[in-house]
């Protein structure tokens, strides 16, 4: 073929498109890439150096993601076919990633990774009879309370039974003085209400997650108890944005109890004034008949469905979740180990602020495992806030949450009918 000027012009015009063609080819990589978030991502490179990775295995590359964008990044990564081999995934996202087929179930030869774990955490990752991720670190929420104010009210610790707990809060509020409250339950956070609901034994969804169960007596009991805390003026009707600084307000006694996770231990030590360091403690959640429950949190390590390094990827997960590796993670980040044996090895039970977390984890309950859950629980809180502000009665609120949940679950019911869900 003779090159004419027209051919040359055409070729030149098409030149900018060339990189697009390059992008079309299959992406292969010799690296075993792992996506991780926040503090964990920052400490991973050091942790990986300590795991004795075999010489012939593919080299490991860590790509950090910010927590705030991680969920969207995982979904867009799946949509664009650019997920890596291994990833850190929040336990509450497992259901969603499993439903769309983005992650692999733990293969039979790696089942041993699931022993020596907290039951509720493993249960969170179990969907349709398969387990989809290996717990890496765990957390849950419980009460942080002012020891001194409870002592002045005549209690060594918050009582574990709802009625007594509430009676104690009344006394604490009196001790704390005018203008102060006993409890901080921000109206824009759903964790407080879900903790009460799990403690009351509510299942929240029924029919294989196809419909809301918010009108069942257990949930209504939790909802009524939640409302009564505001009606009795034990908790202020506030959202988190109106609290400028939780530590200052807690230190001043504006509230004496709030719900949070293990990350708050470090904050307490650094942000609460030195004169208040002996005045705070942690305690497991109360329930209607004593000893409440909580939702298990934390992250798991997963292997993505398209991983080219199947065996090596699971090998990496196994090495990062050994007792020793989790201990190293705990030392680097303060995260609580997912393995029970690591707790005893680290002597965590001797730390009075950490020990209640162990008790609470043993009394944890998995939340419903449907991809729509996050949105349902957001709607639940919007209705609950309106109830607290007087727009709904308890019965009306329960009915409204059910209606909203049922609307969000419409697609899931259709999927269940067709047998297309996991």
């Amino acid at each position, binding site marked *: 073929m003779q090159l004419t000027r027209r051919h040359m012009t055409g070729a030149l015009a098409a030149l900018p498109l060339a990189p697009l063609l390059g992008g079309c080819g299959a992406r292969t990589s010799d690296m075993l890439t792992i996506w991780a978030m926040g503090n964990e991502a920052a400490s991973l490179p050091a942790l990986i150096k300590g795991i004795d990775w075999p010489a012939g295995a593919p080299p490991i590359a860590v790509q950090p993601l910010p927590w705030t964008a991680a969920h969207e990044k995982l979904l867009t990564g799946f*949509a664009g076919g650019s997920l890596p081999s291994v990833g850190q995934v929040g336990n509450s996202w497992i259901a969603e990633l499993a*439903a*769309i087929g*983005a992650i692999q179930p733990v293969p039979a030869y790696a089942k041993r990774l699931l022993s020596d774990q907290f039951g509720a955490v493993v249960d969170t990752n179990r969907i349709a009879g398969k387990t989809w991720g290996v717990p890496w670190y765990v957390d849950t929420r419980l009460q942080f309370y002012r020891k001194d104010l409870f002592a002045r009210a005549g209690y060594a610790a918050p009582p574990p039974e709802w009625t007594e707990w509430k009676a104690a809060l009344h006394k604490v509020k009196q001790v704390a003085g005018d203008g102060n409250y006993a409890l901080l339950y921000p109206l824009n956070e759903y964790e407080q209400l879900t903790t009460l609901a799990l403690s009351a034994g509510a299942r929240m969804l029924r029919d294989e997650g196809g419909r809301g169960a918010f009108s069942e007596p257990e949930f209504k009991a939790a909802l009524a108890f939640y409302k009564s805390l505001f009606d009795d003026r034990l908790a202020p009707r506030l*959202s988190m*944005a109106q609290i400028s600084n939780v530590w200052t307000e807690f230190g001043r006694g504006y509230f004496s109890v709030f719900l949070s996770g293990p990350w708050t231990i470090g904050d307490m030590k650094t942000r609460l004034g030195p004169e208040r360091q002996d005045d705070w403690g942690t305690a497991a959640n109360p329930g209607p008949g004593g000893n409440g429950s909580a939702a298990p949190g934390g992250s798991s390590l997963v292997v993505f469905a398209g991983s080219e390094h199947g065996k090596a990827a699971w090998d990496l997960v196994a090495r990062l979740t050994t007792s020793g590796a989790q201990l190293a993670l705990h030392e680097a980040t303060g995260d609580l180990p997912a393995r029970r044996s690591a707790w005893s090895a680290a002597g965590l039970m001797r730390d009075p602020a950490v020990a209640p977390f162990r008790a609470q984890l043993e009394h944890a309950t998995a939340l419903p495992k449907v991809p729509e859950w996050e*949105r349902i629980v957001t709607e639940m809180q919007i209705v609950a806030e309106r109830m607290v502000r007087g727009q709904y009665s308890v019965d009306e609120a329960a009915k409204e949450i059910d209606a909203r949940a049922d609307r969000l679950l419409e*697609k899931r019911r259709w999927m269940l009918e067709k047998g297309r869900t996991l």
Partner: protein
Amino acid sequence: MSAVGRASETRAGWAMSSPALAAILLFFVLPAIASLFLSFTDFDIYALADIGNLRFVGFQNYERLLENPLFWKAMTNTLLFVAIGTPFIVALSLFAAMLVNSRWLAWRPVWRVALFAPYVTTLVATAVVWRYLLHTRYGLLNYLLSFFGVPPIDWLGSPTASLPAILIFAGWKTFGYNMIIFLAALQTVPRELDEAARIDGAGWFMRLRHVTLPAIAPTVLLVSVLTVAGMFQLFAEPYVMTQGGPAQSTVTILYFMYEEGFKWWNLGSGAAVAFLLFLCILAVTLVQLRLAKRSGAI
């Protein structure tokens, strides 16, 4: 010109414009049609996993949106931004343009650069600085207000102050661009007209109303059409400054679409929001054009 000549000219015209037309077709028209189609389906994460899970739902997405209180809240917020923000920004940028155009101002190029700078700086970086300026206790704005005896305002934390706070920020961020357009227009206004009016005894405001404004009327129209479209598409400001809060007081229609589409991954419903937004912008622009035609601006 002969028929043959005309035909070949037409052909050449098409040939010349076809690359541009092809790009417009490929990157603007086709995606728009695809998203219109998408808005009649229930594309969500289930469909992302397996396209067999996609259902054609007709107008259901639109019906549900119209029933959704948050959608109306977002719509109201956006219309407030348009109704208050457009005159505010147009007036601000016209004022700035007249300022940097006036002869008595020293260092005019420096002023032009300084006032244009906010438009070209990164939004996220400026938003971080503005969050400090608007801080309830440590912010410069409340400090300045305190000289006038105004008690501190919780700019980004109270549902009533958050909308004006975002407006002030958005106005500061975008007026520079409009200012440049106005400046170009102002420089075409003959100085003789202005001077003639002055000799006839017209004051500053009379000259603005009867000389300057009629001369730049088409530009005022252009700037307000652009600003209306910009205000309808306000997203990054509330996203960076308030995340739609407090109490959903700064959720705009585009922010609502982002949450629907990418936070909850309901792309079908998100596409429906996008189309309603398109219809809104189209309607308002048509009204603006009609008003402009009636007043003789075009």
